[in-house]
């Protein structure tokens, strides 16, 4: 008899769980108000991107064309697939001391997987993830970007 009881309870439980699933999707079907997708090209101006969305690595500059990158290459070391290449130089300060600074911050967008490891590795918060995502270009070389602006300097007080 226990076999029969098991059999019937299996049938009962499976039918019950399937009906629960159908009730869920039926609820979604009849309550068609909340839409999780977006009408993309039309709502380009009021896009509703989640906070965690990562589009590309950028280096913010302030109004005086200053950035926070000290050229420590921590991000370059943290990157798993060689997306970042930093060329450093030595600035001579007015006191005659040599100081390490970045010459070019090269970022290969085509290699980047948006893993966020470089942002976590950066000790001075010099780079961050932007939410732009319309990256398509006509030539592959346009993916290789220089993140520091021309003639930009290190911000005062950032070590």
């Amino acid at each position: 008899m226990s076999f029969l009881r098991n059999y019937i309870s299996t049938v009962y439980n499976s039918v019950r769980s399937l009906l629960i699933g159908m009730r869920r999707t039926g609820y979604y079907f009849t309550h068609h108000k909340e839409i999780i997708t977006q009408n993309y090209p039309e709502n380009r101006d009021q896009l509703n991107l989640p906070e965690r969305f990562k589009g590309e690595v950028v280096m913010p500059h302030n109004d005086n064309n200053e950035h926070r990158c000290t050229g420590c290459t921590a991000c370059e070391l943290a990157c798993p697939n060689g997306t970042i290449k930093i060329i450093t130089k030595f600035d001579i300060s007015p006191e005659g001391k040599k100081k390490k600074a970045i010459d070019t911050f090269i970022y290969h967008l085509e290699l980047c997987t948006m893993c966020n490891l470089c942002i976590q590795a950066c000790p001075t918060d010099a780079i961050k993830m932007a939410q732009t995502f319309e990256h398509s270009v006509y030539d592959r070389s346009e993916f290789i970007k220089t993140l520091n602006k021309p003639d930009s300097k290190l911000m005062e007080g950032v070590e």
Partner: protein
Amino acid sequence: MLTTLTELTIVGILILTLFAVLGLVLVFMERKVSAYMQIRLGPNRVGYKGIAQTLADTIKLVVKEGLTPNGADKFLFNLAPFIVMFGAMLLMAPIPFARNSQIWDLNIGVLYITAVSSISVIGILMAGWSSNNKYSLLGAMRSGAQIVSYELSAGLAIISIVVLTGSLKISEIIASQETGWWIFRGHIPVLISFVIFIIAVTAETNRAPFDMAEAESELTAGFHTEYSGMRFALFFLAEYVNIFIVCAIGATLFLGGWMPFHIGNWAGFNHLMDFIPSSIWFFGKTFFLIFVIMWFRWTFPRLRIDQLLNLEWKYLLPIGMFNLLLMTIIAIMGWYF
């Protein structure tokens, strides 16, 4: 002679038109239903709210190149989609679309349906075998195992209605539901056979959660992996036409076909219901069942092939047999309404 020929031509053209319209409507309906169930919008670009989307897809499929692989058995490869379509077309014959509008009311209609619906498996096996592709062959073999096993359950479910009606003729089965549809009159046994029928036909039409033959995730596209262009479109169309046919059969047997909703001998109420045209009743019921089958597809997780055969041989078939026995007792004792 000439009149018969003209009639045949008209009927043929009507059936082909119905196929084309069904393909367009059902594919669009499937995409919209799935979108609504997944809180999406679905196709909404081509035409008003996307209604011309499937038309655009059809044009795309027609102008695409129909590739035949080098190692394929060319004759069988080209024949297979047409066999599948023929199976679907033959099944159209005994389906009553409205009062007095049935192509062929043969006296063994139900037997004809169960017999002819097995033809499509030949087309599927043919497609899988001739493609010279391991995915196609595996998909076709699975599909064969699946259709052959699930036909038993579908057959038993259909027989339980035949037991109640005492006739295999479709028009008589519908006439017997004059005082109420079998699903209301036949108590729990008819309800159980209805559920078994719906599950079995979902499996027979190779739809998710029983999409072993196609199995996008493991077999790329199963038996139609190598097909492209119009021949692929034929398989695609046959799938949707088959859904329509099995739902029409289910509606005819369990929900009274074109018979309006009647309750016993409430003459006034029955008369009121008769004002709604019978074709609307038929298509309404059929599309309701199609919706249910789509609901299944977008709710349930897929089964593995062994779970699939377990479900049939350990659950559906024994329950169906026991249910048929119960049905027979009820029919003999006259314990239905």
